[in-house]
């Protein structure tokens, strides 16, 4: 008998003022004891909703609208809170998505262990303290942190505490909902390693929800893929059959390979408030048949797993039209357009000072992409600010030809900014919510190119066309655009003044995996067609490999390694670079 058996489960969010969102639709699956199942899918496809439903933690407006959840033989779908309580935590525990907020800010770490132990056991205070210390040590945290409040811990530590808490009563099933998003790659890696070791030792089952493909493929015994509220595939990690799964998997590649190709899935997921006949993926599927639009494919056994697709058993879909290929290529020598020499920057807040950038030098050349790779806090964004003149270096120089950027002010600074433009990290924050795309794009044309309102407007259509948007988008407000479309608008704004240098600060990190390659492709095309110099800032070696000709690895404000991308990645010298490389997941392919 399996540990968890879910049959035909449906969940809807019903708000008064809008049609209900059917976030989980007739999902059935089971999990065996000790099994580690990965749940993959784009943002908004219902992963967290499913996980929360299994824990019976759904709050209004969400409601289970059908189906059953059986845990260890008992039907828990309709148990009331009192009947659930003995199961909670002893048998079923969890680490939430964004655990940053899952510890009570006004209670000490110890108190949050204590109330749980008091509820479920009759341990004495001394025993509780000893056990808490043990658990913290298990997740590699010094037990003295027990007395601290959550805000005194770093993000990674909070996550570890949440994990220790989840495992405290040796539960049978742990739901891990994106347990590492928002953390540094190295920290992510070490947390996932702990999960794995502990799971082997203690034998609990794990449902790992994530959109980090590499990690899921590496860790999970079995992978489930969700699309628009339904499970479309379920099988042991390895080659997948459903076109959607293949599309997702295509967005991951090993950056160490000679030739790296990544795919993206064009289009966006369907509206979950509507039911449609046929396969929900039909609009985005490269191998769709006519019957796909009318006939819903059942989740049926194929090979060693299950898949819901009419063609999957025979045809293997690929996204040839939406692939970005990067092989090793020779780069022509070009004179530098921007030279950074020995810059330092120290921030002083109140009494403490932080050295953000320490003696960094490099040059940007036309037609070439230089990647700046490092963890958060390594000084990447500060360098971007120094180059755009938003901040000034304490010492060192930034030369644009013979223009000293580090000394520019007022009018001269504005003239310089025509040549250096920035692509922001968060497409949701980079566009003013009250201005249309047209209003946003017209400004740089008028200010930097000195065009009249009329001329500027005339130029807009070709501008949005370069970033692959239809002119109809000009009159939209940002909230009417998808993440990828917003990022295209941000790129268009940066291109508008016809700059010679583009600085892209983590331009894809906030986007869904399925569309990242799309933006990478766009940036790559622009660099070569327009002969731009680009500084590409990222924490992610794969995207650096895809875009950049050369890499600088930054750690705590200093460059620890630099050189041609492929060489640095294949043949890392600095220990820190090696650490970053080790943190890359190694999925079975």
């Amino acid at each position: 008998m399996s540990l968890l058996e879910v049959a035909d489960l449906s969940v809807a969010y019903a708000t008064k003022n809008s049609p209900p969102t059917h976030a989980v639709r007739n999902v059935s699956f089971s999990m065996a004891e000790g099994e580690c199942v990965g749940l993959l899918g784009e943002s908004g496809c219902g992963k967290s909703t499913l996980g929360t439903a299994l824990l019976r933690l759904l709050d209004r407006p969400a409601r289970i609208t059908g189906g059953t959840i059986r845990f260890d033989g008992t039907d828990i779908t309709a148990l009331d809170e009192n009947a659930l309580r003995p199961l909670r935590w002893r048998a079923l525990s969890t680490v939430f998505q964004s655990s940053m907020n899952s510890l009570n800010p006004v209670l000490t770490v110890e108190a949050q262990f204590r109330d749980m132990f008091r509820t479920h056991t009759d341990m004495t205070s001394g025993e509780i303290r000893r056990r808490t210390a043990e658990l913290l040590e298990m997740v590699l945290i010094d037990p003295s942190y027990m007395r601290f409040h959550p805000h005194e811990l770093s993000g990674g530590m909070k996550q570890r505490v949440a994990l220790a808490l989840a495992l405290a009563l040796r539960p049978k099933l742990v739901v891990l909902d994106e347990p590492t998003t928002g953390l540094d790659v190295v920290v992510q890696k070490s947390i996932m390693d702990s999960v794995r070791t502990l799971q082997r030792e203690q034998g609990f089952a794990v449902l790992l929800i994530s959109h980090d493909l590499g990690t899921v493929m590496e860790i999970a015994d079995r992978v489930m893929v969700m699309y628009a509220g339904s499970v479309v595939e379920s099988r042991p990690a390895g080659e997948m059959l459903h076109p959607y799964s293949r599309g997702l998997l295509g967005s991951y590649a090993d950056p160490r390979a000679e030739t790296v190709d990544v795919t993206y899935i064009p289009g966006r997921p369907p509206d979950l408030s509507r039911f449609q006949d046929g396969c929900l993926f039909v609009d985005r599927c490269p191998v769709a048949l006519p019957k796909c639009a009318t006939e819903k494919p059942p989740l049926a056994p194929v090979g060693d797993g299950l898949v819901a697709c009419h063609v999957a058993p025979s045809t293997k879909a690929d996204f040839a039209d939406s692939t970005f290929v990067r092989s090793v290529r020779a780069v022509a020598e070009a004179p530098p357009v921007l030279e950074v020499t020995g810059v330092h920057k120290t921030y002083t807040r109140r009494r403490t000072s932080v050295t953000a950038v320490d003696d960094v030098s490099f040059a940007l050349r036309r037609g070439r992409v230089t990647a700046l790779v490092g963890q958060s806090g390594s000084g990447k964004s500060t360098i971007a600010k120094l180059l755009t003149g938003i901040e000034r270096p304490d010492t060192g120089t930034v030369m644009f030809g013979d223009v000293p950027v580090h000394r520019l002010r007022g009018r001269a600074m504005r003239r310089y900014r025509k040549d250096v433009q920035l692509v922001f990290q968060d497409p949701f924050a980079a566009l003013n919510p009250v201005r249309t795309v047209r209003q946003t794009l017209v400004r740089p044309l008028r200010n930097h190119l000195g065009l009249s309102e009329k001329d500027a407007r005339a130029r807009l259509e070709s501008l949005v066309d370069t970033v692959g948007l239809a002119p109809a988008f000009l009159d939209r407000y940002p909230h009417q655009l998808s993440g990828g479309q917003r990022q295209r608008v941000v790129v268009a704004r940066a291109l508008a003044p016809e700059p010679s240098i583009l600085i892209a600060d983590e331009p894809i990190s906030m986007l869904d995996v399925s569309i990242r390659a799309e933006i990478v492709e766009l940036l790559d095309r622009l660099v070569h067609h327009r002969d731009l110099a680009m500084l590409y800032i990222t924490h992610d070696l794969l995207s650096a490999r895809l875009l950049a000709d050369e890499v600088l690895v930054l750690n705590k404000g200093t460059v620890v390694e630099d050189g041609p991308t492929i060489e640095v990645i294949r043949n890392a010298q600095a220990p820190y670079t090696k650490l970053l490389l080790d943190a890359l997941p190694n999925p079975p392919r």
Partner: protein
Amino acid sequence: MRYFLRRTAFFVITLWAAVTLNFVIPRLQPGDPAEAIVGQLTGQGPVDPDQIRAVRLMLGVPDTSLLSQYWDYLGSLVRGDFGISYTYFPYPVTHMISEALPWTLVLVGVTQVLGFLIGTVLGAFAAWRRNSRFDSFVTLGSQFVGSLPFFWIALLLLYLLAFLAGWFPDSGGHAVDVTPSWSWAFAGDAIYHGILPALSILVTAPAGWIIGMRNNMVQSLGEDYTRLARAKGLSVRRVALAYGARVAILPNVTGFALALGGILGGTVLVETIFDYPGLGRLLMEAVGARDYPLMQALFLFITIGVLLANLLADFLLGVLDPRVRKEAA
């Protein structure tokens, strides 16, 4: 520790600012302020020379520089010399204030703390039973009651319960034939007299805290840590109190600190209506009689009282919320 030092520093600065404001206000008049004030007094009929003397004394030696007047003013404050009341000549202002202070302190202290507690508890219940009938009733009700002008409620209560029903006395802090003393009889009498004024404050006082607490707690109940507490299988009580309410009360404490100024203002009205012998009524009397020294001193005392209470509330917040202690550092 930093946090407490910072709050204390802010207290000292505001205290200084209030003291200075108190010095500046009477001198805002164009020309010689003393002349202006005296002129205003004489414009209203015959003036007692004592009154003019009191004004001049309060404003300091004329023809000296403002700076030296300010210095003298600070000096007399430090000595506790607030001048002589004109209305209650020859009593010093401090005497009048010390007579009135306990009344206000008890009335405001009791009603505000009660109001805060009642409001917070009701708000917490409303949030816990979100969207229930109790919730809508309490939320809508407190929105309505909260917008009632509370001096008007005082008038209504006075009319209904004192004049029509005759259940309570209509004015004063104690019966005329009872002299203030430390006795049960006096305490009972004072409480009896205090019920109506207290009631008129208590009708509206909880409204703001109800709404604040409800909204905060609806939020804290939706936070991940509360969901996690439920997932941990903690008892309903523990989830509601230690997770939902414990976090939600913090903004209300900050709110309490900020609202104190307004609250004290309101009691002026209530005290006037019930002829309650507190600071507020004294202030109105002073204004009516143009007893400027008394008025100034009262303004200063009320302000200092509010600042002190504010400091206390800030300290309380510091004790309750580990995050603010850190932030200030």
